[in-house]
């Protein structure tokens, strides 16, 4: 198994470029929240998209999930639908 691991190779991501992306996205978020004259719902949607985008950059490149095996990725991915169910059920409890 060790030998097999050593032969699988990946190109190292450009971490400084990802840092720049994160910086630009953070500035965009703050500008969007305070400066952009759009409706509240659109603003909410855009802000959430930006936040998920940033989180994905961190998870894929800094935590190297992009280069991991699916068996390991699943450990991190499985709680996400459960988390979505938890929040949805809690909201439905409130709505109905």
């Amino acid at each position: 198994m060790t030998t097999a691991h050593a032969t699988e190779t990946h190109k190292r991501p450009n971490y400084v470029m990802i840092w720049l992306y994160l910086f630009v996205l953070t500035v965009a978020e703050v500008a969007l929240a305070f400066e952009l004259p759009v409706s509240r719902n659109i603003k909410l949607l855009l802000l959430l998209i930006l936040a998920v985008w940033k989180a994905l950059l961190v998870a894929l490149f800094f935590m190297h999930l992009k280069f991991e095996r699916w068996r390991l990725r699943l450990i991190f991915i499985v709680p996400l639908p459960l988390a979505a169910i938890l929040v949805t059920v809690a909201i439905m409890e409130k709505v109905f």
Partner: protein
Amino acid sequence: MTHGTQVLDQMRPPYPAEPGAGVYSSKLGMWVFLASDVMFFTALIGSYIVLRFGAPGEWAKPGAVLNVPLTAVNTFLLICSSVSMVKAYAAIQDGKKYFLRPVPGKLLRDGGLKFWLLVTMICGAAFVSVQVVEYIKLVGHGFTPAGFREGSLLAEHAAADPIKYGVTVAGLYGSSFFTMTGFHGFHVTCGVISMTYLYFTKVLPEKYSPQDYRGIEVIGLYWHFVDLVWIILFTIVYLI
């Protein structure tokens, strides 16, 4: 070797992997812990969403109570610490155990593991410090987990503009804000303490090598996760 041309096995160092997920046990343990932490923060964020959208009144407008520019800078600080963490990881993969080393023909020195991990620790400690200053100022101005303190500056402002400051739900706002950011701050503090421990017991004595840098990889995963959570919290708590 440059980043662009360097080809290497990113996350599979040449030490024995456990069967199953195919990684060594402490890394698997960290991933399982992070998965459980996802659920922990989901419970907090889910409660916040339910409280906010089910509350009998409007939440305070973004920036009315909280200092968004300061926190945006703090967010950037945490992002910088994530980059320095991953640079520390890359440094030890390349066998750079040193602090700084001159590069012929270049003005800037090349940073090694000791340098980048120290930068990460400083950025993390600075993040927590800014958060503590923010708490002190908020409480000083009258924003507490129970809402606006009577007779405080914020209570006066809120009385003048109750909608902007979300007076009717100030208690919910205060409790959820301090709970979520407090637990996150606790995670950051634990990360800084762990890195400091590793720095003095493993990094300075040069116990890590390109063949075995498990501690750096595992603490790195934790640190990036803390950054990831803050990215979500910053948007949800400060900007929406």
